């Protein structure tokens, strides 16, 4: 039998939790779905279970997730953990989980899909032993697991953050290869005045860099090309810097070059997306409240544009209040009163973004592979050369590329390669990413078994019969 709620929330990171809490304040019935065991999302992963020592290493920004998770637990929202939502639409959604699944109707849906790490398509990035810095941090957050003697490669605050956390925990780091573009510091300076509106965040960044500088870790700057070498697994990293090629033996490498919105669900829902040239990513087009081009759908948090955990919680609350208003449970004046301070606080958080986005803008060569033998779609092992051939034969975009190469048709359904494919086609064809467009995401959004799909239907028929 199909259930019904006023609001369904997808994702239990800061945005999802805040949306649920806000909507509950107005008496909306709320069901929240998330793939993880406990609330927190990626940023606060393992927040309810992390030991004190681990929390100390992860720092106060991580601990800030605790009260939010507690508020969510106390809110009265129904939490569906370990849930895979595989269909979303105007009439609600379908999910599956180890404890069963089903269908649920919802008056409004807030997608708080969060961020994912930008793909780092370089030679050898599919080798065992290579993972993202975010993955390394998740292993630290949720499992307290660390690996000695890894090489950290890339750019962006998260790479520095994980390195700092490793140093704090006394874990050896073999080397850091910094791919930050040499001129981006100058370009970012223009955005510094605006960024000064958020001095705490700036000071934190400087503190991390100072900690790394004071350590014994070797840092190689201006890295312009990276290759990960090995047969069955990673054995070495090779790179080109200003003084030529270098090589270092290692069994583990952590890659990172910033995060992008995880747009899979909003794309599947079919709301309008825009290409954000500063963040080099697609994001759903939203108003201050997270309303999208579809009246039943709101998007909140990093999934609607990268802005960080604090901004995510604020945007989640805005979406929760807006959903209450749009469902006739909060009047316009009430929404206005609640929203004003939230919007103001969120704008303060956003003030830092142009500076950070410009400073850590990943180099074109690291986003769009130049060599034909680099894998662009990990699932189907499609190479850059395959894409180049397809474009030369007139393939205009990612959806047509599927029939040329199977790119985006593996189990991840284009989640990981989407932005690489868009930018590679754009670079090869000379078209703008916005014009190239993104994969059309079909249902089921995640590979599910026939039983998952048929199961609830049969159940429904049985109930009716």
């Amino acid at each position: 039998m199909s259930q019904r709620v006023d609001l369904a929330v997808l994702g239990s990171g800061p945005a999802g939790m805040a949306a649920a809490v806000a909507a509950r304040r107005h008496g909306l019935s709320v069901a929240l779905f998330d793939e993880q065991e406990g609330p927190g999302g990626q940023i606060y992963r393992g927040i309810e279970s992390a030991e004190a020592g681990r929390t100390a290493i992860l720092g106060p920004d991580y601990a800030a997730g605790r009260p939010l998770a507690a508020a969510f637990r106390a809110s009265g929202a129904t939490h569906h953990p370990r849930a895979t939502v595989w269909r979303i639409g105007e009439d609600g959604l379908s999910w599956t989980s180890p404890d069963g699944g089903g269908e649920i109707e919802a008056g409004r849906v807030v997608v708080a899909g969060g961020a994912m790490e930008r793909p780092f398509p370089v030679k050898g990035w599919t080798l065992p032993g290579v993972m993202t810095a975010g993955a390394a941090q998740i292993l630290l957050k949720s499992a307290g697991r660390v690996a000695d003697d890894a090489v950290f490669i890339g750019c962006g605050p998260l790479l520095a953050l994980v390195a700092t956390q490793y140093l704090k925990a006394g874990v050896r780091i073999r080397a850091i290869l910094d791919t930050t573009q040499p001129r981006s510091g100058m370009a970012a300076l223009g955005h510094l005045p605006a960024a000064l509106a958020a001095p705490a965040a700036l000071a934190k960044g400087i503190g991390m860099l100072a900690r790394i500088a004071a350590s014994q870790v070797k840092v190689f700057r201006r890295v312009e090309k990276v290759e990960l070498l090995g047969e069955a697994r990673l054995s070495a990293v090779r790179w080109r810097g200003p003084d030529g090629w270098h090589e270092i033996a290692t069994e583990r490498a952590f890659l990172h070059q910033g995060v992008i919105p995880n747009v899979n669900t909003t794309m599947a829902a079919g709301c309008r997306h825009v290409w954000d040239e500063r963040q080099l990513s697609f994001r759903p087009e939203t108003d201050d409240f997270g309303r999208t081009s579809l009246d039943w759908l709101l998007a909140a948090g990093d999934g609607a544009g990268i802005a960080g955990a604090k901004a995510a919680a604020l945007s989640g609350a805005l979406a929760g209040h807006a959903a209450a208003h749009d469902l006739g449970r909060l009047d316009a004046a009430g929404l206005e009163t609640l929203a004003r301070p939230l919007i103001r606080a969120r704008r303060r958080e956003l003030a830092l973004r142009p500076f950070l986005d410009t400073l850590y803008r990943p180099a074109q060569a690291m986003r769009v592979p130049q060599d034909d033998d680099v894998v662009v779609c990990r699932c189907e092992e499609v190479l850059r050369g395959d894409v180049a051939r397809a474009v030369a034969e007139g393939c205009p975009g990612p959806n047509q590329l599927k029939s040329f190469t199977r790119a985006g048709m593996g189990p991840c359904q284009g989640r990981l390669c989407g932005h690489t494919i868009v930018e590679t086609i754009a670079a090869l064809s000379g078209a703008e990413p916005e014009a190239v467009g993104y994969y059309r995401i079909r249902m089921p959004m995640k590979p599910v078994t026939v039983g998952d799909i048929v199961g609830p239907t049969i159940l429904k028929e049985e109930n009716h019969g």
Partner: protein
Amino acid sequence: MFRPLEKGPRRRVSVRVDGRSVEMEEDANLAAALLEAGFSPFRTTPVSGAPREPYCMMGVCFDCLAVVDDVPNRQTCLETVRAGMTVAMQEGAATVRDVEAAS
């Protein structure tokens, strides 16, 4: 190799990994526990048979797929360790395509 930062007070349970018995922390993230146990690779690709291990740890890449309790295509980064679980390497994964074709 990934190692634990702290000795957790958690109960350890037995999991069968590719036929051998491995002690793991109950309720730990399965992919993390498998990495620590030296399970490698997690799967091989259907296209070239290349070995793969977890890349994203957050449900995006599907490189952590393995056969869990006889069910193929389980994202081990989204599973937790339970007593008596069985895990096996996933070869080729024609099954991934089967699922896709069936849906």
